[in-house]
């Protein structure tokens, strides 16, 4: 029933998909961990990253340059939204941030439609070379995506564990009041976290752009998967996000080998199963809103 020769490429496809998912959702998870907000506007930076990559790669012919511009734009947009919108709602209830950021997301989709129109745009793949791996040909670009995702995870780990700002952020996730008591400006930490989150989401959008077509709804399309991933992994846990991203990536990829519609349904089934066993997700902490 299943063609075994497709399996290696299916696994690589799933891993690269997981990498994209991880980059998209790690921002959501970081923001929740530190600031206790659900920042759905990360999906906007994802779409923005895709569009910046498209625009710059059309103008200059170089996708990597577009990727860098996308990351910068995503980070700046994240900072702007944090300064204007989130600064006013940190003290409010958690669902409040969810509604507001959804407003930002929908409004941002409108902005994208205004500038780039409704038509999906194709982005040319920068590397079309394929390597022979266990008898099947694998596009190198997908391997690069996996490497970048793992590199970003390593970078975040180093940042949180080895730098003073990262340590302050980690301490803030445990207890914001104590960090404030040490004389650290937590609002600056919040801004830095938001910039990192926005930049990473934009990176995910830019990397994914050549694999799918960029269209205004791309942020909303990935949103359902992002939700499932943060729920499975547990909100606020970076490690949980990594594990569940690759898990969902594999489920989508291998599931579609068996039966195509399964790709959309199976992650949901897994999510329900995990919530039944552990309502806070795999690595989620039981702590509530401060």
């Amino acid at each position, binding site marked *: 029933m299943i063609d075994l020769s497709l399996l290696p490429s299916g696994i690589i496809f799933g891993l690269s998909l997981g990498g994209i998912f991880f980059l998209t959702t790690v921002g959501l998870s970081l923001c929740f961990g530190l600031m206790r907000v659900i920042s759905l506007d990360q999906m906007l930076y994802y779409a923005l990253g895709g569009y910046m990559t498209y625009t710059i790669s059309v103008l200059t012919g170089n996708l990597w340059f577009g990727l860098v511009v996308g990351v910068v734009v995503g980070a700046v947009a994240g900072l702007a939204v944090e300064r204007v919108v989130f600064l006013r709602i940190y003290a409010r209830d958690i*669902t409040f941030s969810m509604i*507001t950021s959804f407003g930002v997301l929908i409004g941002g*989709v409108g902005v994208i439609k205004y500038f780039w129109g409704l038509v999906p745009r194709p982005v040319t793949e920068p590397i079309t070379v394929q390597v022979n791996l266990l008898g099947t040909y694998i596009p190198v670009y997908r391997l690069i995506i996996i490497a970048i995702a793992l590199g970003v995870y390593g970078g975040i780990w180093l940042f949180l564990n080895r730098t003073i700002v990262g340590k302050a952020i980690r301490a803030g996730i445990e207890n914001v009041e104590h960090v404030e008591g040490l004389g650290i400006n937590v609002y600056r930490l919040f801004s830095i976290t938001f910039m990192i989150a926005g930049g990473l989401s934009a990176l995910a959008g830019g990397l994914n752009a050549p694999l799918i077509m960029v269209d205004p709804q791309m942020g909303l399309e990935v949103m359902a998967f992002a939700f499932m991933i943060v729920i499975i992994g547990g909100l606020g846990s970076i490690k949980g996000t990594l594990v569940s991203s690759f898990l969902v990536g594999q489920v989508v990829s291998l599931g579609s080998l068996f039966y195509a519609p399964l790709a959309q349904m199976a992650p949901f089934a897994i999510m329900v199963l995990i919530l039944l066993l552990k309502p806070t997700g795999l690595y989620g902490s039981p702590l509530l809103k401060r």
Partner: protein
Amino acid sequence: MNALRWWWGLVLAFALLVVMRVFLPLPFANEVVIFSIYTIGCNFLLGRVGFISFGQPAYLAVGAYAAGFYFTYFGANPYIGIVIGIVVGFIVALIVGPFFVRLRSDYFALVNLALAVIIYFLMQKVLAPITNGDNGLWYLTNLEPTPVLDLTHPSQFFIFALLVGFATWAFYKYLDDSIYGACCLGAKINEDKLTFLGYDNFRIRLTAFVIANTTTALAGALYAVYLGFVSPEITSPTRAVDPVVVTILGGVGTLYGPIVGAIAYTGMKDVLSQILVNWELMIGFLLVFIMLAGEKGIWGTLEPRLKKLFFRKAASETAGGSKARTA
């Protein structure tokens, strides 16, 4: 006298809807009534129980598709279709409810939206052989005229929708006044104290969840009869915010908020979509603006002022009465 006071707000609200029907086009009036029934479930969950549900379109689609399947494959009587929509919505809410209401409010919101997206894919792709995928089910000509109130006729459908809406509002007003309504509010504000008083938190939430989502399924069934077709579009992720926007626009937790919100929202959609092509931009910034400016919404801001205007003399008495009720 007391009974009169209980009813007069409801009667007045629906009398105003009838007046609106005279001055404004019929499709608009129909849309407003169905939309406000659609929203009151979300309003109840958010305002009374403290659950924010981005997944209302899921239950709307359940009601609409249940009615749609009946019309396409089994029968033609609109009334039976609506009843089937309600029953199926009730069953689905009863099945998913126990899993969902145990969750924290943030997870609840995420899981519900995920459910809406899943039902979208289910109807669009997985069940495509019986749902016709994106094209949807079309059965407008199948519907058979009914003797007393002919639901296939838009103007008579409006009367029926108005009656259903009135019944729904009376029911929710009754709920708000009952001990159960107070328990819901308790579950929102402090569940520990509620447990201490001997109430079962889980059962209160589950009941609220089932009631709200059965109402939403009813709205779905009404849509199915009124529009004469069902397509996956009603549960698409871009429309997931509609009920939340209307709830907040009208005023969270207020009884007449959904009606006011539905009128404002549908009106804006009709008027602005002719001027502005970019609807998302509008609704996004409106949402952010309402959330930042004042979360009370239109009716939440208006209500105290209207009360002051009309009951200036009886102000002290009503203030005392309402305080006694909320205490």
